[in-house]
C-alpha cells in the first residue's frame, strides 16, 4: 500500500525530535484522522538551517513529516512557503488515495512554523 520511499522515511525517519530554543514552532492536527504534527525551525539570515519534527499518526503522517524536514532544510523562507503538501507526497512517490487528505499535512505544519517565526521575529 505504501511506496518504498514512504516505508524508508517511516522506518528511518529523518530529523526526529525537538530543537531547543527554536526560532519557530508550528503544529497542525486533523480531527477526523487524529494526526498531529509539530515542526520546529532554526532560521539564520532568512535561510532555514534546521528542522525537526514530532508526529503522532500513521505511516503516511510520519513519512511526510520526515520528508518535509529534508525538503525544507537549506531553503529560504519564501521557498519553504512555496512547498505544498502535494509536493511532499510526490517526493515520496505518492500516497494512497485515502491518505492524501488526512495524513498529508506536513507542509501545513511547516508553514505554521514559519508563520510563528515571522510573528516572533518582526
Amino acid at each position, binding site marked *: 500500500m505504501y511506496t518504498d520511499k514512504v516505508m524508508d522515511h517511516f522506518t528511518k525517519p529523518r530529523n526526529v525530535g525537538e530543537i531547543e530554543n527554536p526560532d519557530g514552532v508550528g503544529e497542525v492536527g486533523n480531527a477526523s484522522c487524529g494526526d498531529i504534527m509539530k515542526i520546529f525551525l532554526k532560521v539564520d539570515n532568512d535561510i532555514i538551517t534546521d528542522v525537526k519534527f514530532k508526529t503522532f499518526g500513521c*505511516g503516511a503522517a510520519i513519512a511526510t513529516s520526515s520528508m518535509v524536514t529534508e525538503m525544507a532544510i537549506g531553503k529560504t523562507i519564501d521557498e519553504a512557503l512555496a512547498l505544498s503538501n502535494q509536493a511532499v507526497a510526490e517526493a515520496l512517490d505518492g500516497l494512497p488515495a485515502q491518505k492524501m487528505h488526512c495524513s498529508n499535512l506536513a507542509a501545513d505544519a511547516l508553514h505554521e512554523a514559519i508563520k510563528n517565526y515571522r510573528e516572533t521575529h518582526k
Partner: protein
Amino acid sequence: MKRIYLDNNATTPVEPAVLEVMLPFFREAFGNPSSVHWAGREVSGAIETAREKVAALINCAPAEIVFIGCGSEGDNHAIKGTCEALAAKGNHIITTTVEHPAVLETCRALEKKGFDVTYIPVDCDGAINLADLERAITDKTILISVMWANNETGNIYPIEEIGAIARKYNIRFHTDAVQAVGKLPVDVQKAGVDLLVISGHKIGAPKGVGALYIRRGTRLAQFMHGGHQERGRRAGTHNVAGIVGLGKACELAAEHLKTRAAHMRRLRDRLEQGIFAAIPEIKLNGHPDRDQRLPNTLNVSFAYIEGESLLLNLDMYGIAASSGSACTSGSLEPSHVMGAMCVEVSLAHSSTRFSLGHETREEDIDFVLQVLPETVQRLRDMSPLYDCKKQQNCSTCQTVKRL
C-alpha cells in the same frame, strides 16, 4: 523473517485435515449435489455429513442448518428475513452499539425502510446492561440481535440471559456467533437462540462458506431467490468443497474445544501480563475479567502512539496484528466499538488487537514481548503527545483536547 500470525479474529489458515477432506471435491467428486446421476449422488452425502457435524457442534438438528456463503450473508438473511416475515407483527429491532458491521449496517438499512432500531449502549468495559435491553422491548419488537462475542475486544455477551429474556417476551433472538464458535462452548438449546451465524474461515475452514442455524418453526423470508437448494431456504449451487471443509472444521472444533481454548488462554494471559508488566501507560480495551473475554483475544491501547504505525512496525518483525485506528479501516473514524466504549479518541486510534490461534506457539508470544516494548518506545519518542506533562499548558495537549 519470522511469520507470527496474531490476527486469527480476522481469519484463520485452513487446517491441514480440513484441506485434505476438501481436495477430492474439486476434481474427482465434482458433481452438483442437486443432480440425480452418479456425479451428484457422489457428493450429496458429503453435504449431509457436513451438516450433521455443524449441527453437533452447536447442539441442533441437522435440518436446522443452512449452508451460506459468509457470515455477513447469515446476518443479513437472519435480520432482513425476520423483518420481512414478521412485518405484520411489528417493526422494532433491538441490538447493541458494538455489533459487527454486518449487523449494524443491516439495521441502518432497515431504519431507512421504516424499521425502528434500539442500539443498546455498552459501558466503558464494553458490557451491556440487561435491564437496558429488557426496558427497550415494546409490543412492536420482533427481533433481538446480540453478538455472542465481540471481534475487537473479545468480550462475551450474556447470551443465555438474553435468550431467557427473549423467550419471556416471545421475541425472536439472533446472535452473530462468528467469533464464539470454536473458542467457546456454543449450545443453541441452552442459549435459547433462534438464529445463529457461523463463519467457516474463522475456525480453520476456507473463506466463502458459513452456516446459519434456523430453529425449527422460525419463519424467515427467503434471502437468495433461485433454485430449491437447502430445502428452498438458500438458492445457489452448493459450495461442496467449502461445505465439506466447514463440516470437518466443526468436527475438529468440537473434538479439541477444551484443549485449544486452554492453550490459547494460557498464551493470551502470558501476552497480556507481559505487555502490562513491560509497558507503562497502556489501557486494556474490553472486560477486565479475563473470563468475560474470548480466550484468544487481547485488545490494548498504547497512549501517545497511533495504531497503524505500530502495526507497520510489528509487521516489519513479521508480527501480524490489527488495529482500531481510522487509518487501517479505510474510513476516517476510529473503531465504532472503541467509540461505543467511550475510549478517548487518541487511545482509540492506538487500539491494537492480538488474536491468537490454536497454532500460536509459546515462542511467538516471547518474540512479541521481546520487540513490542522497544517498538512502542520508539514511536513514543517520535510523538508530540509523549512526555509533555512537564510543560505547563502544553499546546499539543490543547490540540488533542480540541480533537
